[in-house]
């Protein structure tokens, strides 16, 4: 009852304001007039009666205000009042407002933009049922690290594990889609039939795979991705049941995946693993680790560590049982989220920390501005308190102003964030985000609102509390000029500046370390000359290429025609281009070497290349010769090895002329020896930051592969040759798709893109921080000079020299800078550790970087203090003394 009447009266007062006010007016008027009438009846003259009635009633506005408060509408009211008042105050000082809003907009905008990445990559729920219990499994070997899973091993894992309720194998697959305008490659996976149900995903149209489709010999059926269905079938619901030609073979479309389907690798189509197993793809070879990953769902009672130890046990048993293929192989488990995050996590978290610092610095700057402004407003505040406003009321008014500033800053910040997000997504290579959407969505907007509130609180409360300290009431007597000279005020401002300098130093140190490591990284030689080399992939998948001569013939014709194009210096084909994700490795046996355990054979990367490969990539030939056109199918088998393999296995420099074979020696087959004819330089196959590995090269005519990269070195910009090369390929086979077109220089820069991305943003943020900190210290020193104008004037009149004054003022700047530097260095030593995994060639505590950024910050801070200090030396003593 009472609660209800409260709410009702509050609602009434909130929504029926004008009427309430009118009623209150007439009620009070009635009172006064009735009283006046009574007085008049008692003989008081009419005019006099009215005057007395009003006087005895008391201040009518006061009564109204109290009455409003009694009714509980004060909150609404004052908020509205404060808002209007705040807007008026901000409009009256446009300079202050502009600087504060812009500063906050930069801070909030940067935060929102980075948070959109944090959310999109790290937090956005994956479109699976209970995604937290999904795990990806790979095999591991000490020689390489994480490798693919062999299908027979997967079958054993599935039958032996208890900690997983379900397991599904996913083998990478690609298909040539012909019969469209330009032949293209579609990617996807060959999956166990339960793949979608393990994920908890149902097809958007049509049916899921069924259990019988696991067996080799299954009929070719396919699930389309939503986007492939849209682009190639015009979103036709009757597409299900139709046939699509992939690799020259008809696949029946059984369904369409939902629009929000995501998988770490690009997925245009899914086929049942039985279809893949039919094609003699090594499904029965335990030693064949093609491109398979295993998806598993943790059982209800299981945990990841339990599952880890169970899988280790299973792997150890398999290694003992099948040493030839499994010796030293283990299992790696990874929550599925990690597969989507790639190596982005440390970069994203570092950047998120950095923008938080930027926002803090922005807040400190605005707090300082407010303090200075608060000092200027001391008289106004003291007056309001003297006139009966409570301190809380004045604080509330000032906090409302801060909120207004933060809101304006937030609104502008959203625009900056919108632009920033577009810029960032352009900076990142598409594959890096694994289909994550980075955008201004509801969650990101909510975050921005929270940031606005937090910012308003951080920069608003301290100055408000400080400016309304009871001692300010003294200033009413002292007069305005002395206001805000309090030691405590200056100390608070100093503290803000010190904090800004310290935070800036941390950011500068991070940016400096990133810059140094990227510089070191990019000066690492990749082992080849990336300039003016174009690369593109082709995969011969149709039935016409199932015999070696046809494959040889295709590549040879492509090479001949492309070499003849104007502008082409040389052309080559090779199976593995450095710095891409494609790898092919195998064990080798060197003639005469003592035979190790099965898991300890040399395990080089294998390149199958044409004669011009080494020269096209500009790799150094260290010994012997490169391949020639005569190293063909009829000639003796030859190979080249890289410097590392030569060093490790032929330490006397006599590799050329020695022999090795692929695989392990067997009792049944005669060894097929390859003659080593040359030694070439190492390449950074696995990224610039990673060590080189063993490599061998064999001529493509002696073992022709269907999937290769075409490399073209040109005298001009290689991208200009793209369409001519496409034309040359089409003239050999018009249905052959060409994909993954890129320059080698692009591959090199893509391989460090996470670092570049981090460096660019960190550099931007630390630059911003430095500017804000400089503005901060400039403001504080300027203000202190302005306060002490008279002081300085007197000193100069008494004979102090300009340099005395300069030293004195600079001293303040230097003190603040020194404290800021000390705190910043301590903070940076701790904070840069999070960057460790992104650094290359420098430690996170690199002394040179720390010294350099300290000097930079010191120079900027002292320069920012010098400007107002110089002004101080120009003080005319006479003017200063007359100043008040």
């Amino acid at each position, binding site marked *: *009852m009472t609660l209800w009447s*409260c709410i009702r009266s509050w609602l009434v007062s909130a929504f029926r304001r004008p009427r309430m006010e009118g009623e209150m007016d007439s009620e*009070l008027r009635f*009172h006064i007039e009735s009283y006046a009438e009574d007085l008049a009846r008692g003989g008081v003259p009419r005019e006099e009666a009215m005057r007395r009635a009003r006087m005895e009633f*008391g201040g009518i506005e006061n009564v109204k205000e109290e009455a409003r408060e*009694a009714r509980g509408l004060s909150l609404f009211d004052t908020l509205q009042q404060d808002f209007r008042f705040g807007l008026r105050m901000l409009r009256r000082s446009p300079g202050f407002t502009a600087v504060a809003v812009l500063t906050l907009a930069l801070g909030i905008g940067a935060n929102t933009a980075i948070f959109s990445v944090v959310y999109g990559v790290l937090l956005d729920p994956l479109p699976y049922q209970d995604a937290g219990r999904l795990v990806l499994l790979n095999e591991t070997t000490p020689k390489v690290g994480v490798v693919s899973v062999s299908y027979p091993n997967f079958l054993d894992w599935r039958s032996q594990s208890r900690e997983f309720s379900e397991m599904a194998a996913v083998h990478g697959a690609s298909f040539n889609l012909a019969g469209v305008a330009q032949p293209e490659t579609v990617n996807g996976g060959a999956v166990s039939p339960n793949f979608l149900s393990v994920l908890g995903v149902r097809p958007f149209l049509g049916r899921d795979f069924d259990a019988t489709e696991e067996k080799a010999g299954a009929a070719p059926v396919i699930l389309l991705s939503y986007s492939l269905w849209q682009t190639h079938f015009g979103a036709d619901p009757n597409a299900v049941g139709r046939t699509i030609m992939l690799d020259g073979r008809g696949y029946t479309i059984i369904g369409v995946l939902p629009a929000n389907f995501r998988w770490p690798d690009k997925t245009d189509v899914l086929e049942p693993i039985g279809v893949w197993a039919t094609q003699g793809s090594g499904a029965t070879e335990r030693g064949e680790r093609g491109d398979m990953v295993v998806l598993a769902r943790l059982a209800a009672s299981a945990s990841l560590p339990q599952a880890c130890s169970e899988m280790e046990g299973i792997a150890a048993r398999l290694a003992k049982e099948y040493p030839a293929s499994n010796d030293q192989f283990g299992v790696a488990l990874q929550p599925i989220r990690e597969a989507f995050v790639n190596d982005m996590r440390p970069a994203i978290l570092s950047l998120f920390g950095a923008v938080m610092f930027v926002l803090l610095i922005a807040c400190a700057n605005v707090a300082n501005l407010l303090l200075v402004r608060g000092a200027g407003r001391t008289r106004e505040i003291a007056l309001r308190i003297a006139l009966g406003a409570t301190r809380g009321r004045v604080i509330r008014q000032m906090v409302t102003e801060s909120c207004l500033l933060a809101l304006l800053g937030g609104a502008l910040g959203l625009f900056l964030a919108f632009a920033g997000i577009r810029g960032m997504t352009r900076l990142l290579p598409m594959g890096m985000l694994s289909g994550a959407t980075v955008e201004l969505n509801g969650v990101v907007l909510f975050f921005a609102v929270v940031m606005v509130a937090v910012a308003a609180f951080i920069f608003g409360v301290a100055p408000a509390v400080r400016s309304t300290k009871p001692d300010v009431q003294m200033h009413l007597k002292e007069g305005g000029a002395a206001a805000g000279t309090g030691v405590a005020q200056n100390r608070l401002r100093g503290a803000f500046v010190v904090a800004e300098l310290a935070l800036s130093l941390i950011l500068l140190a991070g940016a400096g370390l990133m810059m140094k490591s990227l510089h070191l990284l990019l000066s690492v030689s990749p082992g080849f000359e990336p300039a003016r080399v174009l690369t593109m992939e082709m995969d011969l998948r149709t039935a016409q290429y199932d015999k070696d001569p046809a494959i040889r013939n295709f590549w040879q014709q492509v090479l001949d025609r492309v070499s003849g194009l104007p502008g082409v210096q040389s052309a080559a084909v090779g199976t593995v281009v450095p710095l891409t994700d494609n790898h092919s490795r195998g064990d080798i046996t060197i003639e005469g070497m003592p035979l190790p355990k099965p898991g300890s054979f040399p395990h080089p990367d294998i390149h199958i290349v044409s004669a011009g490969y080494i020269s096209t990539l500009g790799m150094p030939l260290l010994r012997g010769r490169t391949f020639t056109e005569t190293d063909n199918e009829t000639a003796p088998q030859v190979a080249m090895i890289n410097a590392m393999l030569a060093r490790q296995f032929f330490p006397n420099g006599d590799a050329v002329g020695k022999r090795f074979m692929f695989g392990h020696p067997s009792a049944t087959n005669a060894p097929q020896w390859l003659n080593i004819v040359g030694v070439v330089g190492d390449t950074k196959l696995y990224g610039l930051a990673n060590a080189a590995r063993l490599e061998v090269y064999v001529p493509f005519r002696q073992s022709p592969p269907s999937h290769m990269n075409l490399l073209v070195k040109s005298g001009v910009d290689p991208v200009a040759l793209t369409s001519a090369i496409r034309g040359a390929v089409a003239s050999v086979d018009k249905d052959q798709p060409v994909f993954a077109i890129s320059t080698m220089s692009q591959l090199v820069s893509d391989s460090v893109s996470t670092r570049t991305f981090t460096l660019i943003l960190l550099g931007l943020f630390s630059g911003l921080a430095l500017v804000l900190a400089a503005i901060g210290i400039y403001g504080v020193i300027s203000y202190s000079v302005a306060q002490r104008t008279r002081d300085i004037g007197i000193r100069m009149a008494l004979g102090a020299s300009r340099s005395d004054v300069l030293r004195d003022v600079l001293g303040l700047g230097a003190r603040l800078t020194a404290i800021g530097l000390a705190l910043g260095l301590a903070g940076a030593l701790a904070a840069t550790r999070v960057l460790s995994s992104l650094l290359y060639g420098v430690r996170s505590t690199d002394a040179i970087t720390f010294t350099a950024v300290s000097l930079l910050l010191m120079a900027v801070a002292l320069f920012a203090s010098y400007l107002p200090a110089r002004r101080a030396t120009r003080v005319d003593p006479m003017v200063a003394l007359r100043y008040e």
Partner: protein
Amino acid sequence: MDKQLDLLQGTLDMLILKAVSLGPLHGYGVLLRIQQISKDRLEIQQGSLYPALYRLEHQGWITSEWGESENKRKAKYYRLTAAGKRRLQAETENWNRMADVIAGILGAKPEEI
């Protein structure tokens, strides 16, 4: 006329409740009735009456409606609600108990202790 007393802190609400319990009154009428019953011995700030009325209405002890006054003018009349009635009863008991206790303390003589 006796010297006027200042109202004790917090008693105005109780007096208003009592005044309107005797019949609906407009604001000025409340003032007059309290003065009449107290025989003008209480000094009431006229202005303070209205915040108190609004507070009581906000709390649901009294309600108001517009009516016509003795001098044929529109006036807002206040009336006690059922909750207000209970409230008044409770406050009255409280007050009496308090007054007893205070009077007892103030009237204590040395020999009684």
